[in-house]
Protein backbone atom coordinates (compact mmCIF):
# COMPACT_ATOMS: atom_id res chain seq x y z
CA UNK A 1 0.00 0.00 0.00
CA UNK A 2 2.57 2.49 -1.13
CA UNK A 3 0.03 5.25 -1.53
CA UNK A 4 -1.12 5.15 2.09
CA UNK A 5 2.43 4.93 3.41
CA UNK A 6 3.53 7.93 1.39
CA UNK A 7 0.64 9.91 2.83
CA UNK A 8 1.50 8.74 6.31
CA UNK A 9 5.14 9.56 5.81
CA UNK A 10 4.28 13.00 4.65
CA UNK A 11 2.11 13.54 7.70
CA UNK A 12 4.95 12.37 9.94
CA UNK A 13 7.31 14.85 8.36
CA UNK A 14 4.79 17.62 8.80
CA UNK A 15 4.15 16.57 12.38
CA UNK A 16 7.83 16.62 13.25
CA UNK A 17 8.20 19.94 11.57
CA UNK A 18 5.33 21.44 13.55
CA UNK A 19 6.92 20.15 16.73
CA UNK A 20 10.14 21.91 15.84
CA UNK A 21 8.13 25.01 15.14
CA UNK A 22 6.44 24.97 18.53
CA UNK A 23 9.74 24.51 20.32
CA UNK A 24 11.21 27.48 18.51
CA UNK A 25 8.20 29.72 18.84
CA UNK A 26 9.50 31.78 21.68
CA UNK A 27 12.48 34.13 21.51
CA UNK A 28 15.87 32.83 22.46
CA UNK A 29 16.42 33.95 26.06
CA UNK A 30 19.69 35.72 26.83
CA UNK A 31 22.03 34.08 29.34
CA UNK A 32 21.06 34.83 32.92
CA UNK A 33 22.96 37.36 34.90
CA UNK A 34 24.11 39.40 31.91
CA UNK A 35 23.87 43.01 33.05
CA UNK A 36 24.87 46.16 31.22
CA UNK A 37 28.31 47.47 32.11
CA UNK A 38 27.29 50.59 34.02
CA UNK A 39 26.58 51.58 37.58
CA UNK A 40 23.18 53.09 36.83
CA UNK A 41 20.43 50.97 38.35
CA UNK A 42 17.07 51.82 36.89
CA UNK A 43 15.24 49.91 39.60
CA UNK A 44 16.20 52.65 42.06
CA UNK A 45 14.50 55.53 40.26
CA UNK A 46 11.01 56.54 39.28
CA UNK A 47 11.01 59.78 37.36
CA UNK A 48 8.13 62.19 37.00
CA UNK A 49 7.60 65.66 35.58
CA UNK A 50 5.54 68.63 36.70
CA UNK A 51 4.61 71.67 34.62
CA UNK A 52 3.62 74.79 36.58
CA UNK A 53 1.67 76.79 34.05
CA UNK A 54 1.37 79.76 36.42
CA UNK A 55 5.08 80.40 36.12
CA UNK A 56 5.65 80.00 32.39
CA UNK A 57 6.47 83.26 30.63
CA UNK A 58 6.54 81.79 27.14
CA UNK A 59 10.19 82.58 26.49
CA UNK A 60 10.57 79.17 24.77
CA UNK A 61 14.09 78.71 26.13
CA UNK A 62 13.04 75.11 26.72
CA UNK A 63 12.28 74.60 23.03
CA UNK A 64 15.68 75.96 22.00
CA UNK A 65 17.51 73.95 24.64
CA UNK A 66 15.74 70.73 23.62
CA UNK A 67 16.52 71.33 19.97
CA UNK A 68 20.19 71.93 20.74
CA UNK A 69 20.54 69.07 23.20
CA UNK A 70 18.83 66.43 21.06
CA UNK A 71 19.56 67.57 17.49
CA UNK A 72 15.87 67.83 16.74
CA UNK A 73 15.34 68.57 13.04
CA UNK A 74 13.36 71.67 12.05
CA UNK A 75 9.62 71.35 11.65
CA UNK A 76 9.15 68.73 14.35
CA UNK A 77 9.02 69.24 18.09
CA UNK A 78 9.88 67.14 21.10
CA UNK A 79 8.48 69.88 23.29
CA UNK A 80 6.62 73.08 22.62
CA UNK A 81 4.82 75.92 24.37
CA UNK A 82 1.20 76.83 23.67
CA UNK A 83 -0.40 80.18 24.36
CA UNK A 84 -4.07 80.46 25.22
CA UNK A 85 -5.81 83.83 25.02
CA UNK A 86 -9.39 84.08 26.23
CA UNK A 87 -10.96 87.32 25.12
CA UNK A 88 -13.69 89.33 26.76
CA UNK A 89 -16.36 87.49 24.76
CA UNK A 90 -15.07 84.12 25.92
CA UNK A 91 -13.56 83.16 22.57
CA UNK A 92 -10.32 81.22 22.86
CA UNK A 93 -7.36 81.72 20.60
CA UNK A 94 -4.52 79.18 20.77
CA UNK A 95 -1.13 79.31 19.10
CA UNK A 96 2.35 77.92 19.50
CA UNK A 97 5.65 79.64 18.75
CA UNK A 98 6.85 77.14 16.20
CA UNK A 99 8.31 79.56 13.69
CA UNK A 100 11.02 82.21 13.76
CA UNK A 101 13.33 80.79 16.39
CA UNK A 102 10.44 80.27 18.81
CA UNK A 103 9.37 83.76 19.84
CA UNK A 104 5.76 84.60 20.65
CA UNK A 105 4.60 87.80 19.03
CA UNK A 106 2.04 90.32 20.24
CA UNK A 107 -1.59 89.89 19.27
CA UNK A 108 -4.49 92.26 19.15
CA UNK A 109 -6.81 90.08 21.18
CA UNK A 110 -8.76 91.93 23.85
CA UNK A 111 -7.56 89.56 26.51
CA UNK A 112 -9.41 88.83 29.68
CA UNK A 113 -7.34 85.78 30.62
CA UNK A 114 -4.24 84.40 28.94
CA UNK A 115 -1.50 81.94 29.83
CA UNK A 116 1.19 79.67 28.47
CA UNK A 117 1.18 75.89 28.63
CA UNK A 118 4.39 73.97 27.96
CA UNK A 119 3.77 70.57 26.43
CA UNK A 120 5.88 67.48 26.07
CA UNK A 121 5.58 63.72 26.02
CA UNK A 122 3.66 62.64 29.09
CA UNK A 123 5.55 59.34 29.48
CA UNK A 124 2.29 57.63 30.27
CA UNK A 125 2.21 54.64 32.56
CA UNK A 126 -0.28 52.93 30.23
CA UNK A 127 1.01 54.44 27.05
CA UNK A 128 -0.92 53.69 23.89
CA UNK A 129 2.18 54.10 21.79
CA UNK A 130 3.83 51.08 23.38
CA UNK A 131 0.66 49.08 22.94
CA UNK A 132 0.40 49.71 19.21
CA UNK A 133 4.01 49.40 18.11
CA UNK A 134 4.00 46.32 15.85
CA UNK A 135 7.68 45.42 16.28
CA UNK A 136 8.36 46.15 19.91
CA UNK A 137 10.37 49.30 19.25
CA UNK A 138 8.38 51.40 21.72
CA UNK A 139 8.82 50.67 25.38
CA UNK A 140 8.78 52.11 28.87
CA UNK A 141 11.86 51.78 31.02
CA UNK A 142 11.65 50.63 34.61
CA UNK A 143 12.45 54.15 35.76
CA UNK A 144 9.40 55.55 34.01
CA UNK A 145 10.58 56.91 30.66
CA UNK A 146 8.92 55.98 27.37
CA UNK A 147 11.52 55.52 24.66
CA UNK A 148 11.90 54.42 21.05
CA UNK A 149 14.42 51.77 20.01
CA UNK A 150 16.01 53.27 16.94
CA UNK A 151 17.49 49.96 15.92
CA UNK A 152 14.07 48.40 15.42
CA UNK A 153 11.60 51.11 14.50
CA UNK A 154 10.24 50.58 11.00
CA UNK A 155 8.66 54.01 10.70
CA UNK A 156 5.07 52.83 10.25
CA UNK A 157 3.65 55.79 12.17
CA UNK A 158 1.10 53.84 14.18
CA UNK A 159 2.43 55.23 17.46
CA UNK A 160 2.19 58.75 16.07
CA UNK A 161 -1.48 58.19 15.34
CA UNK A 162 -2.08 56.55 18.71
CA UNK A 163 -0.66 59.30 20.92
CA UNK A 164 -3.56 61.42 22.17
CA UNK A 165 -1.24 64.33 22.89
CA UNK A 166 0.54 64.80 19.60
CA UNK A 167 3.90 64.18 21.25
CA UNK A 168 5.30 61.85 18.64
CA UNK A 169 6.41 62.46 15.09
CA UNK A 170 8.27 60.73 12.29
CA UNK A 171 11.66 62.37 12.08
CA UNK A 172 12.34 63.75 8.60
CA UNK A 173 15.97 62.85 9.15
CA UNK A 174 15.85 59.27 10.44
CA UNK A 175 12.36 58.35 9.12
CA UNK A 176 11.63 56.74 12.46
CA UNK A 177 9.35 57.64 15.30
CA UNK A 178 10.87 60.13 17.69
CA UNK A 179 9.76 62.07 20.73
CA UNK A 180 10.85 63.55 24.02
CA UNK A 181 13.13 61.14 25.84
CA UNK A 182 13.17 63.16 29.07
CA UNK A 183 16.84 63.57 28.08
CA UNK A 184 17.42 60.01 29.25
CA UNK A 185 21.12 60.45 28.60
CA UNK A 186 21.18 63.34 31.07
CA UNK A 187 18.86 62.14 33.82
CA UNK A 188 20.67 58.84 34.17
CA UNK A 189 23.79 60.86 34.95
CA UNK A 190 22.10 62.91 37.64
CA UNK A 191 21.48 65.94 35.41
CA UNK A 192 18.12 67.50 34.63
CA UNK A 193 16.51 67.35 31.20
CA UNK A 194 17.63 70.24 29.02
CA UNK A 195 14.20 71.90 29.12
CA UNK A 196 14.11 71.86 32.93
CA UNK A 197 17.67 73.10 33.20
CA UNK A 198 17.06 76.03 30.87
CA UNK A 199 13.74 77.29 32.25
CA UNK A 200 14.38 80.65 33.92
CA UNK A 201 11.15 80.60 35.92
CA UNK A 202 11.11 77.06 37.24
CA UNK A 203 7.93 76.26 35.32
CA UNK A 204 9.24 72.80 34.48
CA UNK A 205 10.07 70.54 37.38
CA UNK A 206 11.66 67.14 37.13
CA UNK A 207 12.54 64.70 39.84
CA UNK A 208 12.62 61.23 41.28
CA UNK A 209 9.50 60.07 43.05
CA UNK A 210 11.58 57.54 44.96
CA UNK A 211 13.11 60.44 46.87
CA UNK A 212 10.40 61.69 49.24
CA UNK A 213 12.35 64.90 49.81
CA UNK A 214 12.59 65.85 46.16
CA UNK A 215 10.73 68.95 45.03
CA UNK A 216 8.51 66.89 42.82
CA UNK A 217 7.47 64.46 45.55
CA UNK A 218 6.53 67.35 47.80
CA UNK A 219 4.57 69.13 45.09
CA UNK A 220 2.60 66.04 44.12
CA UNK A 221 1.76 65.32 47.73
CA UNK A 222 0.61 68.80 48.60
CA UNK A 223 -0.62 70.68 45.55
CA UNK A 224 -3.65 70.24 43.32
CA UNK A 225 -2.64 68.97 39.94
CA UNK A 226 -4.19 67.58 36.80
CA UNK A 227 -3.13 65.59 33.79
CA UNK A 228 -4.01 66.04 30.14
CA UNK A 229 -6.90 63.98 28.74
CA UNK A 230 -7.34 61.72 31.75
CA UNK A 231 -10.37 60.13 30.08
CA UNK A 232 -8.02 58.40 27.65
CA UNK A 233 -6.86 56.15 30.46
CA UNK A 234 -3.20 56.55 29.54
CA UNK A 235 -2.20 57.54 33.10
CA UNK A 236 0.19 60.30 32.11
CA UNK A 237 3.26 60.76 34.26
CA UNK A 238 3.44 64.48 33.58
CA UNK A 239 1.39 66.58 35.99
CA UNK A 240 0.12 70.09 35.44
CA UNK A 241 -0.42 72.81 38.01
CA UNK A 242 -2.84 75.58 37.23
CA UNK A 243 -4.33 73.88 34.17
CA UNK A 244 -7.32 75.69 32.67
CA UNK A 245 -10.28 73.78 31.27
CA UNK A 246 -9.48 75.08 27.78
CA UNK A 247 -6.26 73.08 27.69
CA UNK A 248 -6.58 69.72 25.99
Amino acid at each position, binding site marked *: MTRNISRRDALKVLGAGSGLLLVHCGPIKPPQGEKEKSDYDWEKHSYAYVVDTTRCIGCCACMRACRAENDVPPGVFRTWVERYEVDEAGEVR*VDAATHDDFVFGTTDTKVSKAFFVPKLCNHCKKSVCNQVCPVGAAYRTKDGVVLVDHDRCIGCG*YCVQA*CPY*GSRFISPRTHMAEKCTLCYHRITRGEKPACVASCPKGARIFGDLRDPQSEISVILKQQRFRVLKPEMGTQPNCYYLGLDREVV
Partner: protein
Amino acid sequence: MDYVFPNELNVTWTVMIVLYPYITGLVAGAFIVSSLYHVFGRHELEPVARFSLVSAFVFLLFAPLPLLMHLGHPERALSIMVTPNFSSAMAGFGFIYNTYLVLVVLEVWFVMRGQFIARAKGTGPIAFACRAILLFNLDESAETRRVDHKIATFLAGLGIPLACLLHGYVGFLFGSLKANPWWSTALMFVIFIFSAIVSGISVLIFHTFVVAWINGWEVEEKCIRALGKYLWGFMIIAVSLELLEILSIAYKQTEEWEVLERLISEKLFISYVVLQFGLFSLVPFVFLAITALVPLGKRLTHALIWLASVMLLMQVLLMRWNVVIGGQLLSKSMRGFTSYFPGLFEREGLVVAAIIFTAPFLILWGFNRVVPLFPHAVSKVRTGMN
Protein backbone atom coordinates in the same frame (compact mmCIF):
# COMPACT_ATOMS: atom_id res chain seq x y z
CA MET B 1 -9.18 80.08 15.69
CA ASP B 2 -7.64 76.96 14.30
CA TYR B 3 -4.86 75.37 16.29
CA VAL B 4 -3.09 72.19 15.38
CA PHE B 5 -0.45 70.51 17.55
CA PRO B 6 2.94 71.37 16.05
CA ASN B 7 3.72 67.77 15.14
CA GLU B 8 0.42 67.29 13.35
CA LEU B 9 0.99 69.70 10.49
CA ASN B 10 2.23 66.88 8.29
CA VAL B 11 -0.05 63.95 7.69
CA THR B 12 1.72 60.69 8.58
CA TRP B 13 -0.52 58.15 6.88
CA THR B 14 -0.70 59.24 3.28
CA VAL B 15 -2.50 58.11 0.17
CA MET B 16 -0.52 54.86 0.39
CA ILE B 17 -2.42 54.01 3.53
CA VAL B 18 -5.64 54.85 1.71
CA LEU B 19 -4.62 52.53 -1.08
CA TYR B 20 -3.64 49.60 1.12
CA PRO B 21 -7.05 48.87 2.64
CA TYR B 22 -8.58 49.58 -0.73
CA ILE B 23 -6.51 46.87 -2.36
CA THR B 24 -7.05 44.36 0.44
CA GLY B 25 -10.70 45.23 0.18
CA LEU B 26 -10.70 44.29 -3.49
CA VAL B 27 -8.97 41.06 -2.51
CA ALA B 28 -11.53 40.24 0.15
CA GLY B 29 -14.46 41.05 -2.09
CA ALA B 30 -13.15 39.11 -5.07
CA PHE B 31 -12.39 36.15 -2.86
CA ILE B 32 -15.88 36.18 -1.37
CA VAL B 33 -17.36 36.04 -4.88
CA SER B 34 -15.11 33.12 -5.71
CA SER B 35 -16.14 31.39 -2.51
CA LEU B 36 -19.81 32.03 -3.20
CA TYR B 37 -19.30 29.77 -6.16
CA HIS B 38 -16.89 27.20 -4.72
CA VAL B 39 -18.43 26.84 -1.27
CA PHE B 40 -22.02 27.96 -1.50
CA GLY B 41 -22.64 26.54 -4.94
CA ARG B 42 -23.90 29.72 -6.63
CA HIS B 43 -23.55 28.31 -10.09
CA GLU B 44 -24.65 31.42 -11.88
CA LEU B 45 -21.30 32.90 -10.80
CA GLU B 46 -19.34 30.20 -12.59
CA PRO B 47 -18.21 32.44 -15.46
CA VAL B 48 -16.35 34.78 -13.10
CA ALA B 49 -15.32 32.29 -10.43
CA ARG B 50 -11.86 31.66 -11.84
CA PHE B 51 -11.33 35.28 -12.71
CA SER B 52 -12.34 36.46 -9.26
CA LEU B 53 -10.01 34.01 -7.57
CA VAL B 54 -7.02 35.02 -9.66
CA SER B 55 -7.95 38.69 -9.27
CA ALA B 56 -7.88 38.18 -5.54
CA PHE B 57 -4.48 36.56 -5.85
CA VAL B 58 -2.96 39.28 -8.03
CA PHE B 59 -4.32 42.12 -5.93
CA LEU B 60 -3.01 40.33 -2.87
CA LEU B 61 0.47 40.27 -4.38
CA PHE B 62 0.36 44.04 -4.70
CA ALA B 63 -1.16 44.73 -1.30
CA PRO B 64 2.13 45.11 0.61
CA LEU B 65 3.55 47.56 -1.93
CA PRO B 66 1.82 50.69 -0.58
CA LEU B 67 2.97 49.72 2.88
CA LEU B 68 6.56 49.32 1.75
CA MET B 69 6.38 52.70 0.07
CA HIS B 70 5.14 54.21 3.30
CA LEU B 71 7.47 52.67 5.86
CA GLY B 72 10.34 54.82 7.04
CA HIS B 73 12.51 51.72 7.01
CA PRO B 74 11.08 49.18 4.57
CA GLU B 75 14.26 47.11 4.88
CA ARG B 76 13.14 46.33 8.43
CA ALA B 77 9.65 45.34 7.34
CA LEU B 78 10.20 41.69 8.23
CA SER B 79 10.68 42.69 11.88
CA ILE B 80 6.93 42.60 12.05
CA MET B 81 7.16 38.83 11.91
CA VAL B 82 10.41 38.43 13.81
CA THR B 83 9.37 40.30 16.96
CA PRO B 84 5.65 40.95 16.59
CA ASN B 85 4.02 42.81 19.42
CA PHE B 86 0.64 41.16 19.49
CA SER B 87 -1.01 43.90 21.50
CA SER B 88 -0.77 45.86 18.26
CA ALA B 89 -3.32 45.21 15.53
CA MET B 90 -0.67 45.99 12.97
CA ALA B 91 1.49 43.10 14.14
CA GLY B 92 -1.17 40.76 12.82
CA PHE B 93 -0.43 41.91 9.31
CA GLY B 94 2.62 39.73 8.70
CA PHE B 95 1.03 36.48 9.78
CA ILE B 96 -2.48 37.10 8.48
CA TYR B 97 -1.22 38.28 5.14
CA ASN B 98 1.20 35.44 4.64
CA THR B 99 -1.25 32.79 5.80
CA TYR B 100 -3.88 34.19 3.49
CA LEU B 101 -1.39 34.46 0.64
CA VAL B 102 -0.45 30.82 1.08
CA LEU B 103 -4.11 29.88 1.13
CA VAL B 104 -4.92 31.82 -2.02
CA VAL B 105 -1.86 30.48 -3.82
CA LEU B 106 -2.87 26.96 -2.89
CA GLU B 107 -6.43 27.52 -3.96
CA VAL B 108 -5.38 29.01 -7.30
CA TRP B 109 -3.08 26.02 -7.71
CA PHE B 110 -5.81 23.50 -7.05
CA VAL B 111 -8.55 25.27 -8.98
CA MET B 112 -6.50 26.16 -12.04
CA ARG B 113 -4.54 22.93 -12.17
CA GLY B 114 -6.43 21.78 -15.19
CA GLN B 115 -5.47 24.85 -17.21
CA PHE B 116 -1.88 24.75 -16.01
CA ILE B 117 -1.60 21.15 -17.11
CA ALA B 118 -2.97 22.05 -20.53
CA ARG B 119 -0.38 24.79 -20.86
CA ALA B 120 2.41 22.65 -19.45
CA LYS B 121 2.10 20.11 -22.21
CA GLY B 122 3.76 22.34 -24.80
CA THR B 123 7.35 23.32 -25.27
CA GLY B 124 9.22 26.46 -24.44
CA PRO B 125 10.06 28.32 -21.25
CA ILE B 126 6.48 29.09 -20.23
CA ALA B 127 5.49 25.46 -20.53
CA PHE B 128 8.49 24.53 -18.40
CA ALA B 129 7.54 27.16 -15.86
CA CYS B 130 4.04 25.69 -15.72
CA ARG B 131 5.49 22.24 -15.14
CA ALA B 132 7.64 23.61 -12.33
CA ILE B 133 4.59 25.27 -10.79
CA LEU B 134 2.78 21.94 -10.96
CA LEU B 135 5.76 20.34 -9.20
CA PHE B 136 6.19 18.20 -12.28
CA ASN B 137 3.06 16.21 -11.51
CA LEU B 138 0.76 16.41 -14.51
CA ASP B 139 -1.76 13.84 -13.29
CA GLU B 140 -5.20 14.89 -14.48
CA SER B 141 -7.23 11.79 -13.85
CA ALA B 142 -10.80 12.22 -12.73
CA GLU B 143 -9.96 11.05 -9.23
CA THR B 144 -7.17 13.55 -8.94
CA ARG B 145 -9.48 16.30 -10.16
CA ARG B 146 -12.03 15.34 -7.52
CA VAL B 147 -9.34 15.63 -4.85
CA ASP B 148 -8.44 19.00 -6.30
CA HIS B 149 -12.05 20.05 -6.11
CA LYS B 150 -12.46 18.91 -2.51
CA ILE B 151 -9.33 20.69 -1.36
CA ALA B 152 -10.24 23.81 -3.28
CA THR B 153 -13.65 23.85 -1.68
CA PHE B 154 -12.11 23.44 1.76
CA LEU B 155 -9.64 26.23 1.11
CA ALA B 156 -12.37 28.48 -0.26
CA GLY B 157 -14.36 27.95 2.89
CA LEU B 158 -11.35 28.48 5.17
CA GLY B 159 -10.46 31.57 3.20
CA ILE B 160 -13.67 33.40 3.99
CA PRO B 161 -12.86 34.12 7.64
CA LEU B 162 -9.23 34.73 6.71
CA ALA B 163 -10.28 37.25 4.07
CA CYS B 164 -12.49 38.94 6.62
CA LEU B 165 -9.58 38.96 9.05
CA LEU B 166 -7.16 40.32 6.47
CA HIS B 167 -9.36 43.23 5.75
CA GLY B 168 -11.11 43.51 9.05
CA TYR B 169 -7.95 43.90 11.10
CA VAL B 170 -7.35 47.20 9.29
CA GLY B 171 -10.77 48.32 10.40
CA PHE B 172 -9.93 47.26 13.92
CA LEU B 173 -6.63 49.09 13.67
CA PHE B 174 -8.50 52.32 13.08
CA GLY B 175 -11.51 51.60 15.24
CA SER B 176 -9.47 50.77 18.33
CA LEU B 177 -7.49 54.01 18.31
CA LYS B 178 -9.04 55.95 21.17
CA ALA B 179 -6.91 59.02 20.51
CA ASN B 180 -8.72 59.84 17.28
CA PRO B 181 -12.45 60.54 17.62
CA TRP B 182 -13.07 60.18 13.91
CA TRP B 183 -11.72 56.66 13.92
CA SER B 184 -12.63 55.37 17.34
CA THR B 185 -15.73 53.22 16.95
CA ALA B 186 -16.47 49.53 17.40
CA LEU B 187 -18.25 49.51 14.04
CA MET B 188 -15.11 50.19 12.06
CA PHE B 189 -14.15 46.52 11.77
CA VAL B 190 -17.51 45.59 10.29
CA ILE B 191 -17.77 48.65 8.07
CA PHE B 192 -14.44 47.86 6.51
CA ILE B 193 -15.37 44.25 5.81
CA PHE B 194 -18.67 45.04 4.15
CA SER B 195 -17.37 47.91 2.11
CA ALA B 196 -14.49 45.65 1.08
CA ILE B 197 -16.96 43.14 -0.28
CA VAL B 198 -18.73 45.93 -2.13
CA SER B 199 -15.47 47.08 -3.72
CA GLY B 200 -14.48 43.51 -4.61
CA ILE B 201 -17.73 42.75 -6.38
CA SER B 202 -17.59 46.14 -8.10
CA VAL B 203 -14.10 45.63 -9.42
CA LEU B 204 -15.08 42.22 -10.76
CA ILE B 205 -18.08 43.60 -12.57
CA PHE B 206 -16.08 46.52 -13.88
CA HIS B 207 -13.20 44.40 -15.01
CA THR B 208 -15.36 41.67 -16.53
CA PHE B 209 -17.09 44.21 -18.73
CA VAL B 210 -13.82 45.82 -19.75
CA VAL B 211 -12.25 42.47 -20.60
CA ALA B 212 -15.34 41.42 -22.54
CA TRP B 213 -15.38 44.71 -24.40
CA ILE B 214 -11.70 44.44 -25.30
CA ASN B 215 -11.96 40.86 -26.52
CA GLY B 216 -15.39 41.14 -28.05
CA TRP B 217 -16.90 38.54 -25.75
CA GLU B 218 -20.44 38.12 -24.53
CA VAL B 219 -21.09 38.94 -20.94
CA GLU B 220 -23.07 36.19 -19.27
CA GLU B 221 -26.31 37.88 -18.24
CA LYS B 222 -27.37 35.59 -15.40
CA CYS B 223 -23.95 35.99 -13.80
CA ILE B 224 -23.98 39.76 -14.01
CA ARG B 225 -27.53 39.98 -12.72
CA ALA B 226 -26.57 37.77 -9.78
CA LEU B 227 -23.50 39.88 -9.10
CA GLY B 228 -25.67 42.98 -9.33
CA LYS B 229 -28.04 41.59 -6.73
CA TYR B 230 -25.20 40.66 -4.40
CA LEU B 231 -23.68 44.09 -4.91
CA TRP B 232 -26.98 45.74 -4.10
CA GLY B 233 -27.42 43.72 -0.94
CA PHE B 234 -23.89 44.23 0.32
CA MET B 235 -23.89 47.94 -0.48
CA ILE B 236 -27.09 48.41 1.47
CA ILE B 237 -25.43 46.82 4.49
CA ALA B 238 -22.19 48.74 4.03
CA VAL B 239 -23.79 52.14 3.56
CA SER B 240 -26.23 51.49 6.38
CA LEU B 241 -23.33 50.75 8.71
CA GLU B 242 -21.49 53.88 7.59
CA LEU B 243 -24.61 55.95 8.12
CA LEU B 244 -25.24 54.31 11.46
CA GLU B 245 -21.77 55.26 12.63
CA ILE B 246 -22.05 58.92 11.72
CA LEU B 247 -25.63 59.26 12.90
CA SER B 248 -24.67 57.75 16.24
CA ILE B 249 -21.88 60.28 16.70
CA ALA B 250 -24.11 63.12 15.52
CA TYR B 251 -26.87 62.12 17.89
CA LYS B 252 -24.78 61.60 21.01
CA GLN B 253 -22.91 64.87 20.48
CA THR B 254 -20.24 64.25 23.04
CA GLU B 255 -17.49 66.83 23.47
CA GLU B 256 -15.67 66.05 20.25
CA TRP B 257 -18.81 66.57 18.15
CA GLU B 258 -18.05 70.28 17.98
CA VAL B 259 -14.92 69.68 15.96
CA LEU B 260 -16.19 66.59 14.11
CA GLU B 261 -19.14 68.59 12.86
CA ARG B 262 -16.71 71.14 11.50
CA LEU B 263 -14.66 68.36 9.92
CA ILE B 264 -17.70 67.10 8.05
CA SER B 265 -19.14 70.44 7.08
CA GLU B 266 -15.87 72.18 6.19
CA LYS B 267 -13.00 69.89 5.29
CA LEU B 268 -14.84 66.78 4.13
CA PHE B 269 -18.07 68.24 2.84
CA ILE B 270 -17.46 67.43 -0.82
CA SER B 271 -15.72 64.10 -0.41
CA TYR B 272 -17.90 62.77 2.42
CA VAL B 273 -21.36 64.26 2.21
CA VAL B 274 -21.69 65.08 -1.47
CA LEU B 275 -19.72 62.28 -3.05
CA GLN B 276 -19.44 59.33 -0.67
CA PHE B 277 -23.01 59.41 0.59
CA GLY B 278 -24.73 61.60 -1.94
CA LEU B 279 -23.68 60.77 -5.43
CA PHE B 280 -21.81 57.50 -5.13
CA SER B 281 -24.15 55.77 -2.67
CA LEU B 282 -27.56 57.03 -3.64
CA VAL B 283 -27.23 56.69 -7.41
CA PRO B 284 -25.79 53.13 -7.38
CA PHE B 285 -28.49 52.17 -4.90
CA VAL B 286 -31.15 53.38 -7.30
CA PHE B 287 -29.53 51.79 -10.33
CA LEU B 288 -29.06 48.43 -8.63
CA ALA B 289 -32.56 48.55 -7.20
CA ILE B 290 -33.91 49.06 -10.68
CA THR B 291 -31.87 46.26 -12.18
CA ALA B 292 -32.76 43.91 -9.33
CA LEU B 293 -36.47 44.63 -9.22
CA VAL B 294 -37.46 45.85 -12.67
CA PRO B 295 -37.08 43.58 -15.70
CA LEU B 296 -35.21 45.66 -18.24
CA GLY B 297 -33.44 44.85 -21.47
CA LYS B 298 -29.99 43.32 -21.36
CA ARG B 299 -28.03 46.31 -22.60
CA LEU B 300 -29.69 48.71 -20.19
CA THR B 301 -29.31 46.32 -17.27
CA HIS B 302 -25.65 45.78 -18.05
CA ALA B 303 -25.05 49.51 -18.44
CA LEU B 304 -26.71 50.35 -15.15
CA ILE B 305 -24.84 47.62 -13.30
CA TRP B 306 -21.55 48.68 -14.82
CA LEU B 307 -22.14 52.32 -13.93
CA ALA B 308 -23.14 51.34 -10.43
CA SER B 309 -19.96 49.30 -10.05
CA VAL B 310 -17.81 52.24 -11.19
CA MET B 311 -19.52 54.56 -8.75
CA LEU B 312 -19.25 52.09 -5.93
CA LEU B 313 -15.56 51.67 -6.63
CA MET B 314 -15.30 55.43 -6.18
CA GLN B 315 -17.49 55.30 -3.10
CA VAL B 316 -15.30 52.78 -1.35
CA LEU B 317 -12.13 54.63 -2.33
CA LEU B 318 -13.64 57.83 -0.99
CA MET B 319 -14.68 56.05 2.18
CA ARG B 320 -11.08 54.94 2.73
CA TRP B 321 -9.85 58.46 1.98
CA ASN B 322 -12.36 60.08 4.29
CA VAL B 323 -11.50 57.73 7.10
CA VAL B 324 -7.71 57.69 6.78
CA ILE B 325 -7.03 61.23 5.66
CA GLY B 326 -10.07 62.77 7.33
CA GLY B 327 -8.99 61.43 10.69
CA GLN B 328 -5.59 63.02 10.31
CA LEU B 329 -6.87 66.37 9.10
CA LEU B 330 -8.47 66.68 12.49
CA SER B 331 -6.03 67.80 15.16
CA LYS B 332 -5.95 66.06 18.52
CA SER B 333 -6.09 69.52 20.04
CA MET B 334 -9.77 69.45 18.98
CA ARG B 335 -9.31 72.98 17.76
CA GLY B 336 -8.45 72.88 14.13
CA PHE B 337 -7.45 71.12 10.97
CA THR B 338 -4.41 70.65 8.87
CA SER B 339 -4.50 70.00 5.15
CA TYR B 340 -3.14 67.35 2.87
CA PHE B 341 -2.44 66.98 -0.77
CA PRO B 342 -0.54 63.92 -1.91
CA GLY B 343 2.36 65.02 -4.02
CA LEU B 344 2.69 63.88 -7.59
CA PHE B 345 6.09 62.28 -8.00
CA GLU B 346 7.03 61.63 -4.40
CA ARG B 347 7.54 58.20 -2.98
CA GLU B 348 4.07 58.38 -1.49
CA GLY B 349 2.58 60.43 -4.27
CA LEU B 350 -0.21 60.03 -6.78
CA VAL B 351 1.90 58.66 -9.61
CA VAL B 352 3.20 55.81 -7.47
CA ALA B 353 -0.35 55.17 -6.26
CA ALA B 354 -1.60 55.02 -9.82
CA ILE B 355 1.15 52.59 -10.79
CA ILE B 356 0.46 50.33 -7.82
CA PHE B 357 -3.24 50.32 -8.61
CA THR B 358 -3.00 49.66 -12.34
CA ALA B 359 -0.19 47.12 -12.20
CA PRO B 360 -2.45 44.27 -10.98
CA PHE B 361 -4.64 44.70 -14.02
CA LEU B 362 -1.61 44.37 -16.25
CA ILE B 363 -0.45 41.29 -14.36
CA LEU B 364 -3.91 39.80 -14.75
CA TRP B 365 -3.70 40.40 -18.46
CA GLY B 366 -0.32 38.64 -18.48
CA PHE B 367 -1.72 35.77 -16.41
CA ASN B 368 -4.54 35.40 -18.85
CA ARG B 369 -2.06 35.02 -21.68
CA VAL B 370 -0.49 32.07 -19.90
CA VAL B 371 -3.60 30.48 -18.47
CA PRO B 372 -7.01 31.64 -19.67
CA LEU B 373 -9.20 33.14 -16.99
CA PHE B 374 -12.37 33.02 -19.04
CA PRO B 375 -12.16 29.57 -20.59
CA HIS B 376 -15.83 29.54 -21.59
CA ALA B 377 -16.02 32.99 -23.02
CA VAL B 378 -18.20 33.29 -26.06
CA SER B 379 -17.65 35.81 -28.77
CA LYS B 380 -20.39 38.30 -29.38
CA VAL B 381 -22.71 37.41 -32.20
CA ARG B 382 -22.11 40.10 -34.76
CA THR B 383 -25.60 40.24 -36.22
CA GLY B 384 -26.40 43.35 -34.25
CA MET B 385 -29.14 41.73 -32.16
CA ASN B 386 -29.03 41.83 -28.35
